[in-house]
């Protein structure tokens, strides 16, 4: 698992006590701005999202149903920027369309995992006792299956296909978020301001949602962006294994699998999807690193 070290993640939002009025937002932006690499990565992610949304309008050819039979396995050219695959389809169009699948898979699966995991973590950390034991036991069991194995198990039950891959990857994101949020909740709930809220008669729901949850957000956000990278790789791996997106869907992992038989004559069929996955995941990882450095109060380097 590409898990970031849980204990280096921020435990609480940066303290804002200064003569200027500094909101957590402006403080975050001040620190994030200084991270040049993360800024570039963030811009690249935004570009990717724009491309993914606009994909059907910007591709030069139909990604699934256009076949150029005269140029099977042709190298990159002016007409076909990334070349042509074994069936005569334009690789550039397929990569652009594939960005929708990979981004959606990465984002949706982590979002589902994060929401469920955060709720479970809050419940476990705040209530301790039985709730905590049951939820953490379930997490232990989920942790007992190495990441992709759990996903393969889920796909074996639900059947192959991209929707099921998303469910599978979400399932294995849940326990990590639950543990992360639980740890933060345990640390936050004994702080004075939470005690104060309780002594004013705030209900448990108010305390958890208004006072504890905001304290866990920065950790969740950092982990979210690092997790997207992992999830994109996992989803692509499942497709590569033939358990995810099925042909003719232009999924990057599936494209790499299809390129294996023509590696000798047409390596470009593998290079472009591989680059697409690499750059996308790299951008999310660099962005996550930058977010961590900007949100972690422990890091005040340079």
């Amino acid at each position, binding site marked *: *698992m*590409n*898990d970031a*070290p849980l*204990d*280096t993640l921020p435990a609480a939002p940066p303290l804002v006590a200064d003569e200027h009025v500094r909101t957590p937002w402006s403080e975050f932006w001040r620190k994030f701005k200084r991270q040049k690499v993360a800024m570039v990565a963030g811009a690249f992610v935004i570009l990717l999202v724009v491309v993914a949304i606009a994909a059907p309008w910007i591709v030069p050819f139909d990604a699934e149903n256009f076949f150029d039979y005269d140029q099977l396995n042709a190298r990159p050219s002016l007409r076909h920027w990334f070349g042509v695959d074994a069936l005569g389809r334009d690789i550039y169009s397929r990569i652009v369309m594939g960005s929708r699948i990979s981004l959606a898979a990465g984002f949706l699966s982590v979002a589902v995992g994060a929401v469920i995991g955060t709720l479970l973590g809050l419940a476990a950390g705040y209530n301790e006792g039985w709730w905590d034991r049951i939820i953490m*036991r379930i997490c*232990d*069991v989920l942790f*007992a*299956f*190495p*990441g*992709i*194995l759990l996903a*393969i*198990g889920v*796909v*074996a*039950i639900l*059947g192959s296909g991209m929707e099921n891959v998303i469910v599978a990857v979400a399932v294995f994101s849940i326990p990590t978020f639950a543990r992360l949020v639980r740890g933060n909740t345990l640390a936050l709930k004994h702080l004075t301001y939470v005690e104060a809220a309780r002594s004013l008669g705030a209900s448990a729901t108010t305390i958890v949602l208004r006072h504890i949850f905001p304290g866990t957000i920065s950790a969740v956000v950092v982990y979210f962006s690092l997790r997207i*990278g992992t999830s994109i*790789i996992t989803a*692509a*791996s499942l497709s*590569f*294994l*033939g*358990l995810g997106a099925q042909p003719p869907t232009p999924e990057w*992992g599936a494209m*790499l*699998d299809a*390129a*294996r038989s023509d*590696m*000798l004559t047409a*390596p470009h069929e*593998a290079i472009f*999807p*591989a680059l697409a*996955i*690499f750059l996308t*995941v*790299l951008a999310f*990882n*660099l962005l996550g*690193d930058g977010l961590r450095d900007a949100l972690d109060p422990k890091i005040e*380097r*340079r």
Partner: protein
Amino acid sequence: MIQYIAKRLLGLLPTLLLVGFLVFLFVHLLPGDPARLAAGPDATPETVELVRKDLGLDRPLPQQFLHFVGGVLRWDFGTSLRTKRPVSSEIGDRFMPTFWLTVWSMLWSVLIGMAIGIVSAVWRNRWPDRVGMTLAVSGISFPAFALGMVLMQFFSVQLNWLPTVGDDTWRHYLLPSITLGAAVAAIMARFTRSSFVEILGEDFIRTARAKGLDERRVVVKHGLRNALIPVVTMMGLQFGFLLGGSIVVEKVFNWPGLGRLLVDAVDMRDYPVIQALVLLFSLEFILINLIVDVLYGFINPRIRYR
């Protein structure tokens, strides 16, 4: 010490039972009738009923579960639907190649990863750090199957230095273990660096420097031992990642191991094989984390076994 291990083993029992129960339930979660699946698509209803009786699928669930646990304890996982051979011998044939692949990958990736992490921490924000961390972030961003294909294309096809598929000699192990270990090395490097950076800022390091120890002793004697504690925990988690990663890498290199067996089994809905493999992988993972916990105590004398 022994008491501690025994206690931890006992503590694992509920998790093991739950894992076993989930794996057992797996058959019943599959869409369709497992008996029909086992009998094959062309079987008559009578045959299906016979198969159902034969597999014990007509008995009540708790009884089936006991039967399943009893089978597992006797290392009997039933028969593969695809090859009609016992699942245990199917797994036995494929176990060693995967085992060695994982062990070699783990060894090199942990050593190299930690070395890069230490170098990066000691020369923090200077060029060795930048090179090391650029490598590391690339390592976690490059999917194993793509890396494997690139390495095979370059070293086996273009340069013709190394064999492409198979597991006969040590040279067959080179590319797959590099592929499998790359991501782990990258994660270890990043983790070691952050752990080390934190330790190097501690008071006792300053004390060590103040009393005139040379830098190498400070790093090795005072830094390393303390920084290793979280790193060892991370190692255990990474092993699970390797077990999972081997599934993908084995497909790239056509490796005769458990990962490919699992993918084929999922493809063919060969559920006894899937069950046994999922159980085996999780068991390995749990055991390795137990070993890591014990190792932890050796490095960290502050932990007392109770």
